């Protein structure tokens, strides 16, 4: 059924493109040709790789910091009350503002680009993990205290499995959000990456290349879902009926 649905989408796209016969909507075949040329020239893999690297680094930092802070805030009411307003502020600062400020304060450098992405994603991770931590089963935590589990044992065997759905939720929404922010970061202040290239294609009105790069990136994200996230889910939830 998913294959049939995808084929129907492609057929609709092809039909519409032929009907409109315009440069602004190239056919899937034309996009596939541009995609292949980009791969052969090495341009597409290079820029895609650069963007992916930025995505991995900023995602890892945001998830690690976000999980740690989220757990602490979820377990400590005083700290949570203190930092709650900070979270609301950072959640509502527009991504574009953070990116511009990071470039203004730290210059058009790689670390500023990564920092801008992390600052945009971090509050979402913190909020999601904090909610998960608040929902932890107190009975199981009491059991762990009774049997004198160490802090590490409690975290690994009692807390983390309960947070798994929240971590996966933050991961999926994080990947979707981060790559969109990264494109803006690259568009505004980097000389390589998907965002930089898309800006270039926009100036050239090259819609086929824009779509080819988009398809490539969406395919990579789908592969991450299929090859990493789904198996992780399966492994973590193997105890369910």
């Amino acid at each position, binding site marked *: 059924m998913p294959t049939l649905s995808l084929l129907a989408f492609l057929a609709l796209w092809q039909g519409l493109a032929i009907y409109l016969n315009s440069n602004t909507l190239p056919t899937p075949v034309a996009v596939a040709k541009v995609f292949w040329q980009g791969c052969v020239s090495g341009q597409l893999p290079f820029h895609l790789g650069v963007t992916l690297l930025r995505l991995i680094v900023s995602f890892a930092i945001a998830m690690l910091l976000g999980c740690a802070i989220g757990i602490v805030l979820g377990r400590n009411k005083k700290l949570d009350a203190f930092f709650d307003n900070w979270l609301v502020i950072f959640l509502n600062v527009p991504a574009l503002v953070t990116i511009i400020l990071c470039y203004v304060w730290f210059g058009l450098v790689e670390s500023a680009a990564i920092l801008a992405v992390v600052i945009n994603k971090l509050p979402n991770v913190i909020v999601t993990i904090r909610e998960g931590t608040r929902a932890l089963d107190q*009975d*199981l935590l*009491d*059991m762990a*205290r*009774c*049997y*004198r*589990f160490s802090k590490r*044992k409690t975290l690994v*065997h*009692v807390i983390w*499995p309960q947070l798994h759905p929240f971590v996966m939720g933050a991961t999926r929404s994080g990947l979707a959000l981060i790559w969109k922010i990264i494109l803006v970061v690259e568009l505004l202040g980097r000389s390589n990456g998907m965002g930089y290239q898309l800006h270039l294609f926009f100036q050239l009105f090259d819609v086929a290349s824009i779509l080819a790069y988009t398809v490539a990136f969406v395919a990579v994200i789908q592969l991450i879902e299929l090859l990493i996230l789904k198996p992780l889910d399966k492994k*973590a939830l193997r*105890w*369910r*009926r």
Partner: protein
Amino acid sequence: MTDIQINISNKTYPTATKPSIEDLKLSLNSNEFTCLVGPSGCGKTTLLNIIAGLDNDYDGDILVGERHTHPKIGYIFQNPRLLPWRTVRENIELALDGNQSPEVIDELLEVMQLTAAQHVYPERLSLGMSRRVAIIRAFAVDPEVLLMDEPFVSLDAPTARQVRELLLKLWQQRPHTVLFVTHDLREAIALADRLIFLSASPMRVVSEVIVPIARNERGNELAIESFRQQLLKNHPEIKPLL
């Protein structure tokens, strides 16, 4: 094993107007099976949580031998509280602190008839089996006191009887100090060496009774019922507590 003294002068919940527990003195003798019998809501679970160190908001003292500390405990809760993402064996292993030999788990699984289910996840167990896992986990840590909070509640009568018999078998093989909470007098008589009757609001000791029935007679319903009748006749003060 060591005797344990529990002195709680006051335990009042922050939102309550009067204490839940007041001037409560309990003495748990080494390797003795003690049952606390009291009405629902009288604070029995609160008392167990205090002994377990889960509730430290009280005035009083717990003495384990000469030590002013909480005893090392094995706690069998009303709900078995097994980690659903760990197998039966992993649930037991996680409770061990490294001083106990893992072979003890094999022996305990065998006594409780769970060897075949040791690699199964708790979701696939019946409630009776889950309770047996919780009992194994509590014994496996070789505690100074075993706390049991109505562990057979919500089991059907035959299952409750089977788990009770297995518990007694295990306890006779591996004697430990037990503090067992129940509001079922027949169950208490079937299990205990000593019965302690508690009042509610605030909780106080009303009466203490030694159960004279021999261990090999505990499965005899007639003997249990006969002692229960005698108890109610000789100790009218416990009637309102049941």
